[in-house]
């Protein structure tokens, strides 16, 4: 499958590699400092060396398989952070709504469940976007992601009515549209995954 | 007042885990039983954190619960893979 985005040149890939390296090392080092909380030189040095070593070791993990085009960096650095930051409060609100609905169904004496499996398709180029969409579906009203193949999502709905959140009669549901708007618009330096 | 509440909360977590055995023991398929690991795992994290808050040593207990969360997550995945391959759900 060809990459949707324009393939970056060797030069920009080198640059992306360096940015990724620095970003992951500093993220790990900050994580170490939060964990350890010690400012003695010995612990800071051990932390820095460990962060560096893990970044080097984890380097192949964060490259997507090169069999479909060239390798791309799968880094948290790439995310469209401003839009993600706007998305998260909305997601949390949806989770709260979902849980109140779940509580009402579960505590209802008649247990009004009517499960149903639906499928829909949605293309999101960024892998983290797919993760976000699938996990958002799992966390929000009455739906769980059962399977995800290529672009096809299989959703288990607790009640038929809940399917409206992800698949609408005309066009796409609220959730895929929202996640697609967050992740899909900007061409990010990632390709499709096998 | 806070400590009374924390003690109550610890009691509630233990109650929740005990009630959950009502699903783990009869559970028709093996996956129903595995949900027990998921739920009891999350409850155990909360349990450890509440004990830490009661003990005024939350820092130490946070470390423990983090290790527990990580190990529980991976163990769950390994079990899921094992049973997916085996393919018999009525054990």
């Amino acid at each position, binding site marked *: 499958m060809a990459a949707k985005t324009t393939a970056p040149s060797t030069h920009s890939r080198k640059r992306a590699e360096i940015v990724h390296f620095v970003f992951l090392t500093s993220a790990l080092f900050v994580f170490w400092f939060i964990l350890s909380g010690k400012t003695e030189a010995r612990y800071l040095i051990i932390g820095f060396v460990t*962060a560096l070593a893990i970044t080097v070791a984890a380097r192949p993990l964060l490259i997507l398989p090169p069999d479909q085009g060239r390798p791309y960096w799968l880094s948290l650095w790439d995310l469209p952070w401003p839009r993600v930051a706007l998305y998260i409060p909305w997601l949390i609100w949806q989770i709260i709504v979902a849980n109140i609905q779940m509580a009402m169904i579960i505590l209802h004496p008649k247990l009004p469940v009517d499960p149903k499996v639906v499928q829909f398709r949605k293309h999101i180029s960024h892998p983290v976007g797919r993760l976000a969409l699938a996990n958002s579906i799992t966390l929000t009203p009455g739906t769980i992601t059962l399977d995800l193949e290529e672009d096809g999502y299989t959703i288990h709905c607790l009640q038929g009515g809940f399917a409206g959140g992800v698949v609408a009669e005309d066009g796409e549901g609220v959730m895929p549209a929202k996640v697609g708007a967050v992740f899909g618009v900007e061409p990010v330096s990632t390709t499709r995954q096998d | 007042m806070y400590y009374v509440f924390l003690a109550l909360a610890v009691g509630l977590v233990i109650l929740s885990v005990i009630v959950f055995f009502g699903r783990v023991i009869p559970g028709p398929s093996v996956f129903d039983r595995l949900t027990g690991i998921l739920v009891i795992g999350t409850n155990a994290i909360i349990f450890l954190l509440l004990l830490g808050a009661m003990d005024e040593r939350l820092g130490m207990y946070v470390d423990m619960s983090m290790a527990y969360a990580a190990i529980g997550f991976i163990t769950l*995945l390994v079990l899921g893979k094992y049973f997916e391959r085996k393919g018999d759900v009525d054990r």
Partner: protein
Amino acid sequence: MRKSFGSIILNVAFRHLTPFLMLYGVYVLVHGHYGPGGGFQAGALLGLAVVLVQMVQGTRAEWRIGVSGGIILACLGALIYLAIGLAPFIWGGNFLDYGVLPIAATPAEARALGILGIETGVTMGVMGVIIVMFDLLTRDNGEREE
């Protein structure tokens, strides 16, 4: 662990979780004498991180250690443990008596370093054993180590 496992969701999630899991394992190892844990927990965490990678990616895993590699790692860990444990004999100490080792200025420092070395040995041993166990457990039917 030949076939890969999980869908794209797991495949994306584990890539971001693994480095932090490894770092947490090293933290538990280094700060073992301040909080809970130490060698065994650190070994479990590091080993499970490798198991996660092998399990999700199958044969194409980047960190493929496998059964023989795990056994070598475990033996190496035991060797380190024994070497550091027996080293004090040379300077006239007891087994695991690191205070006499000439590796630091004060006996207390030497003891701290010795404990770190011992814990590293334990970590490697546990890590190797866990990798071997999970590799055998999640192996497909009739599959053999080549």
